[in-house]
């Protein structure tokens, strides 16, 4: 065991961690709104809309992230007819994949509020959007927060999948360093500790939110 190799590669690993966190942040920020739209579509009374959204959610949920990533990695250049950057394909795949998980969380959050609240809101003279905005959503978001936080951790853990297409996030950075230095044991232990610390901090936050709500 030679722990100096970690010290020597620490700046590199921290940069990788930064990339992973940014990738996760972009994926969350883009897939959450898309997930909200999917959830609202799924709860719609228009059958064609709710069936389309439901079908899309179930189709995506039955496939692994790796496969979805391969699909977009391969398809996006064919459809657009020109080369797309690695990062572009990765972000598109992540956003579409994770949006369906956010959609399920938002849907169950909205459903947890209950139809009587909606009826009460409407009977006081609020319009439907007003009821959603002032009565349903404030309660739904509070109910969803722990699950949303947990999902953010899942997205962060999911960024490791970008390793497979050679994108320089934390795991790929570590594997390159492991190859270069011939010290896989120390470097993989180091990245495991880094992922563990970030994810533990996240799950402590989720538990705190759960206690408060």
């Amino acid at each position, binding site marked *: 065991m030679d722990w100096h190799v970690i010290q020597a590669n620490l700046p590199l690993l921290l940069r990788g961690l930064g990339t992973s966190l940014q990738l996760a942040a972009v994926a969350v920020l883009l897939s959450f709104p898309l997930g909200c739209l999917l959830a609202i579509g799924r709860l719609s009374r228009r059958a064609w809309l709710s069936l389309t959204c439901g079908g899309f959610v*179930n189709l995506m949920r039955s496939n692994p992230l*790796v*496969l979805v990533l391969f699909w977009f990695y391969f398809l996006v250049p064919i459809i657009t007819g020109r080369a797309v950057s690695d990062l572009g394909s990765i972000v598109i795949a992540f956003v579409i994949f994770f949006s369906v998980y956010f959609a399920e969380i938002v849907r169950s959050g909205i459903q947890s509020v209950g139809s009587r609240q909606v009826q009460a809101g409407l009977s006081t003279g609020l319009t439907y959007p007003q009821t959603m905005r002032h009565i349903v959503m404030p309660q739904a978001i509070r109910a969803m927060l722990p699950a949303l936080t947990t999902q953010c951790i899942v997205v962060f853990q999911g960024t490791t999948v970008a390793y497979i297409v050679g994108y320089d996030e934390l795991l790929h950075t570590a594997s390159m360093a492991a190859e270069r230095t011939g010290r896989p044991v120390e470097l993989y232990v180091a990245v495991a500790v880094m992922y563990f610390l970030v994810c533990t901090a996240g799950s402590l936050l989720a538990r705190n939110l759960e206690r408060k709500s």
Partner: protein
Amino acid sequence: MNYQFNWAMLITEPYFGWIADGVLTTLHLALIAWCIAFVLGVAVGSCRVSGSAVLRLFGGAYVELFRNIPLLVQLFLWLYVAPQLLPADTRLWWNRLDSVPYWTAVIGISFYTSSRIAEQIRAAMNAIPQGQFRAALSTGLTPVQMYRHVILPYAIRIMLPAITSEFLTVFKNTALALTIGVLEITATTRKIEAWSFKGIEAYTVASLTYLATTVAVIGVMTWLERRLYIPGLIRRGG
């Protein structure tokens, strides 16, 4: 979009044989890993709800450790780091095995999944009203009898939907085994794409495999849930 479809290619050799192997590998990898994970998960989950503080602490640490490291990183740890901890002759025996990546994937996925199953066991146990435990003991049942005849029949029914979705997660997680060189269905279709440049056909096979298995598993589990249903026990969704 300029793409020439060739679906017939999929049933010609060597592709057809590859696909069959890939589907089978995915299925038995998922089944073996899930069975091990279930046994480990029940053991750790029982630790988490036990009366002993030491066991609870161990259960908690186990769950946090395996849940907070991404599965892909865990696979690398099992592949590169864990063998270094073995005694020299055992390590030699392990490295000489034909299918080291396959068994590494089995071990990695099992431990990762067991921490999630342990959490579901705990949640199911906590969902059973305390009165049930006391009532069972006060009728003169021993603790073992209490679990066997009163608690477990409840807990299994409460857990069934979560266990179903956990199995589907394991099944999807087997795709990550391609990083350590296991030729399951996703790796196979990628190989087909690399050989033939027919990515759409190849990936469709993989997607349909996952979709068909998901539909089949949900079908069987819904049937099972209905068979085991006790009126008034669980509020059914939908």
